[in-house]
């Protein structure tokens, strides 16, 4: 094995204080990028959680609806038109809208009502840990997530509250259905939802469509489009993409997360570049000796690049450990940080690129080394 690695590691570990400072810089940078990107992924997942859990192949949305929570409404008569299309198995209207939950103390808190016909399982609460979803059809039955007890001022199953002045009773509890907006989701029956959200009986937020097996999806989409006029027909993937695009980029949230990640990369690059340059400067006489001995420039570059790679790998391992802890800590939060294997791979590549490109400044310095200096001291 070449001594390049030995030389690089000795150069790096020789000044431990500087090495630690470099690692702190890299870890800070990578963790910052990791959290920003993890938030981005987590946010991306949270904004589509309802679409992900809906039992739908296609969606009919009011024209221009930007996301699942969009307040615009469409005519529920479209349901009959779509149902008439050959190949459609079922069409279920959903009502989604904001309402007010009144706590025992008299305080009001906003909630997002999610409702569908309970006879179809287009979008029923999932992860039910207590109670029975079928009870939602009874007057005033609601299902909430147990993480919102404090927010809703309730203690558990059977709790009584008011939505828009109407008495409701918690009949089912879920685990992990959290809203990225901090506004709790409240699942109710379709009929009650209209009362709680002020939606007329002939209006719905959207229609979820299930197709018959072996149906030709592309042809059916065209056929449904011909039936719904101005309304839009989207696949679940398209609806997810539109919702994600709106919340992440339409609101600027995604841009802010990316800006934070970019800042992390810049900070990391500058810190690594500065410390590598400083380390290289300290070892200039050694590099000059190598040059005097006849070493190629590439040999010297490889020493610097190996130093950068060592920085990257060690820094990344530490950052990944911190990232793991952060992921665990935020798993049950309103906005969990999601780190996928793909993100880990990208971050590793990014860390390596960041550290190696930081070595360019040091390499530029080394290129100017005159081996004659070896004879001057």
């Amino acid at each position: 094995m070449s001594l390049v690695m030995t030389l690089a590691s000795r150069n790096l570990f020789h000044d431990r204080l500087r090495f630690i400072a470099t690692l702190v810089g890299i870890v800070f940078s990578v963790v910052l990028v990791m959290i920003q990107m993890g938030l981005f992924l987590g946010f991306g997942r949270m904004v589509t959680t309802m679409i992900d859990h809906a039992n739908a192949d296609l969606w009919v949305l009011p024209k221009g609806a930007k996301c699942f929570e969009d307040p615009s409404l469409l005519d529920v008569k479209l349901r009959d038109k779509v149902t008439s299309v050959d190949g459609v198995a079922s069409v279920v209207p959903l009502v989604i809208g904001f309402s007010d939950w009144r706590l025992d103390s008299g305080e009001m808190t906003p909630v997002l009502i999610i409702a569908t016909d309970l006879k179809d399982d287009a979008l029923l609460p999932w992860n039910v840990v207590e109670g029975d979803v079928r009870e939602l059809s009874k007057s005033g039955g609601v299902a909430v997530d147990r993480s919102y007890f404090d927010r809703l001022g309730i203690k558990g199953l059977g709790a009584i509250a008011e939505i828009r002045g109407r008495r409701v009773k918690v009949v089912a509890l879920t685990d992990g259905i959290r809203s990225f907006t901090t506004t709790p989701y409240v699942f109710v029956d379709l009929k009650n939802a209209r009362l709680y959200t002020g939606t007329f009986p002939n209006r719905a937020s959207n229609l979820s469509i299930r197709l018959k097996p072996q149906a030709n999806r592309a042809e059916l989409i065209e056929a449904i489009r011909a039936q719904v006029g101005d309304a839009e027909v989207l696949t679940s993937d398209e609806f997810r993409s539109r919702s994600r695009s709106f919340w992440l980029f339409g609101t600027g949230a995604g841009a802010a997360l990316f800006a934070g990640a970019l800042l992390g990369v810049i900070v990391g690059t500058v810190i690594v570049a500065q410390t590598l340059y400083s380390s290289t400067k300290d070892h200039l006489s050694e590099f000059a000796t190598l040059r005097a001995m006849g070493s190629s420039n590439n040999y010297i570059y490889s020493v610097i690049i190996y130093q950068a790679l060592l920085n990257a790998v060690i820094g990344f391992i530490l950052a990944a450990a911190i990232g793991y802890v952060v992921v665990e800590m935020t798993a049950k939060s309103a906005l969990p940080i999601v780190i996928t294997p793909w993100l880990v791979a990208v971050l590793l590549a990014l860390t390596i690129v960041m550290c190696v490109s930081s070595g360019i400044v040091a390499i530029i310095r080394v290129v100017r080394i005159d081996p004659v200096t070896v004879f001057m001291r």
Partner: protein
Amino acid sequence: MNEIVIEAKEVKKTLGKGAGQVQALRGIDCTLRRGELTLLMGPSGSGKTTLLLILGCMLTPSSGTVSICGTSTSNADTEALARIRRDHIGFVFQSYHLFPTLTAAQNVQLALDIRGEYGRAAARKAREALGLVGLEQKARSRPGGLSGGEQQRVAIARALVANPSVILADEPTSALDSDNGRTVMRILAETAHERDRAVLVVTHDPRVVPFGDRIIEIEDGILVNETSDEPDRLRLPKAAASGP
């Protein structure tokens, strides 16, 4: 006559720019041969280090030609000069220039490493080279744990290990006491005679004179005298013969 490994013809070198310009070498002809230890002597500022740098492919002459083992250095770029150094020249520096974080063996092995020789074979060669200078038992020591004389012997082992045709030594004894100085010069003389290398030692230390097979004296950038222990090698350079 031994094979010529370095040949310099009419070498001139001007250093600096404008008013600070100095003509360091004013037309040097010289040769280095295998099996011969040549001493290059002269007072400070005489041009001996500049000549060493030119013969060692660190500098290129302003005019004149230098060839190393038949390869001309004219028009060679810095990378080509580095390749010539790597292929043909071993250096011994006044301040040793060992790598403080590497062991003695690794310091020696480094000269093979830059030539693309790795692994056990390289490690064995490094140990053998340390054996040649009597330091095999110090192979695992770092330079900080070695005396000045030992460090210079490690530096000589590093210069020898890749089997170069020429060893160029810059004031190798100036930082050493008499005993260590003699040891270092004896090793360099053995390198020249027993390993058939051309060895050039730049020095102003009169104690090393007995070790030289040939002594070249330089003054004001001109070779003023050349003496040899073999009468047929003795000649005066053209510049000295024609006077200042």
